[in-house]
């Protein structure tokens, strides 16, 4: 390849890499959150909520399948959704650190879910208009499921926050503890900027304003206080995770790591 051709191809190559990274971030976030919710199966406070959390997990893993399949096609190295889910190590996962946080009690899981649902609502709503038609189609599909998830999680947030003194105290504590992970939700880096420049992804600042207003309204309805913004040392989007992701992956990947290529 001549130098002139290489120079002309470079911006496209960078865009291609950024798109791959962007789709992996979305897919990994859904996958890890879905895997976390799956840990509740058989342990939720009531049968109805057990089914509810499992249903959320199922939708999220379904969304992850669509996104990771697409990521594998963009990458072009013949890695399918399973190869990407089961055969990457933690530094190669680009999910938001919030998604990998432990379940804690039911209230803590609800707070994490509500924060993630309200984030996905904004992102998927805007992605419906993406110049990338495949992402737009996946977003439209995921959005209607996310709306239903948000109805579930915001409903429980209000019920617990505005419930007994005990439930109020527990969810407020969960909000306080998880809040430091929200800084990452709308922190744009060069991948986001590149996606915004070509109309693939929405500007995160607009999404953040909508998210913030929605979150404030829900907190008010739940008689909960919004904590102050906090600095955070994790950058899940860049593969720098909290210690928890390794344990999630150890369980999720155990079978494929032990018996490579096993099918059922």
């Amino acid at each position, binding site marked *: 390849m001549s130098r002139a051709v290489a120079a002309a191809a470079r911006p496209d190559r960078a865009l291609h890499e950024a798109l791959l990274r962007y789709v992996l971030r979305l897919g990994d976030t859904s996958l890890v959150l*879905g895997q976390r919710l799956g840990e509740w199966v058989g342990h939720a406070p009531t049968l109805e909520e057990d089914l509810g959390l499992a249903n959320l997990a199922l*939708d999220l*893993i*379904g969304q992850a*399948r669509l996104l990771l399949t697409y990521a594998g096609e963009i990458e072009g190295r013949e890695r399918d959704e399973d190869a990407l889910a089961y055969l990457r190590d933690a530094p190669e996962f680009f999910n938001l650190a919030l998604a990998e946080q432990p379940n804690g009690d039911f209230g803590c899981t609800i707070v994490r879910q509500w924060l993630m649902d309200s984030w996905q609502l904004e992102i998927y709503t805007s992605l419906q208009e993406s110049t990338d038609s*495949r992402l737009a189609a996946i977003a439209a599909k995921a959005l*209607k499921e996310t709306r239903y998830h948000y109805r579930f999680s915001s409903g429980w947030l209000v019920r617990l926050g505005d419930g007994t003194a005990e439930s109020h105290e527990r969810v407020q504590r969960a909000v306080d503890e998880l809040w430091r992970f929200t800084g990452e939700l709308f922190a744009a880096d060069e991948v986001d900027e590149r996606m915004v420049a070509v109309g693939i992804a929405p500007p995160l600042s607009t999404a953040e304003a909508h998210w913030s207003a929605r979150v404030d309204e829900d907190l008010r309805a739940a008689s909960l206080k919004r904590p102050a913004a906090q600095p955070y040392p994790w950058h899940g989007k860049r593969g720098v995770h909290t210690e928890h992701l390794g344990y999630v992956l150890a369980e999720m990947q155990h079978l494929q790591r032990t018996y490579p290529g096993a099918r059922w």
Partner: protein
Amino acid sequence: MSAVITDADIAAREREVWELLGEVPDPEIPVLSIVDLGIVRHVRQGSDGRLSVGLTPTYSGCPATEVIRGSVRAALDAHGHAAAAIEEVLSPPWTSDWLTPAGRRKLAAFGIAPPEASVSNPKHLWGATVVTCPRCASRATERVSEFGSTPCKAHYRCSACREPFDYFKCL
């Protein structure tokens, strides 16, 4: 030697495949065919003679999706369409509005309340939807859980006849 294929032949062939797919049951709610459910997006005979069937998933993670694909493949193979392609169509996304009128009637007869509203109204999720009991037709029902035995159903109970029932989510 190849015979001339007319538009009428193509239409007849496509109609025959639609009828075939109308016999393929949904694995979770077998009273419904996949055509009743509204997940067959197209049956198309290309100019090259190749047949393609477009399927769309109901929910992203519905485990029935792959079973359905397998049943469609088997039905096509058994009726001489082994060369037919099955395509996944994501856009526009499936909603409960794609249920056919026949599908709604079959659901109700089976004891599952069909969706009460159209999803085109974005307020449907937060509006006070009243669900009719599929057993006694009472409107005095209450939601037990937003989630049920499959991704497409929620769990309700009737205050009049006291029976629990499934509601096909309006989503």
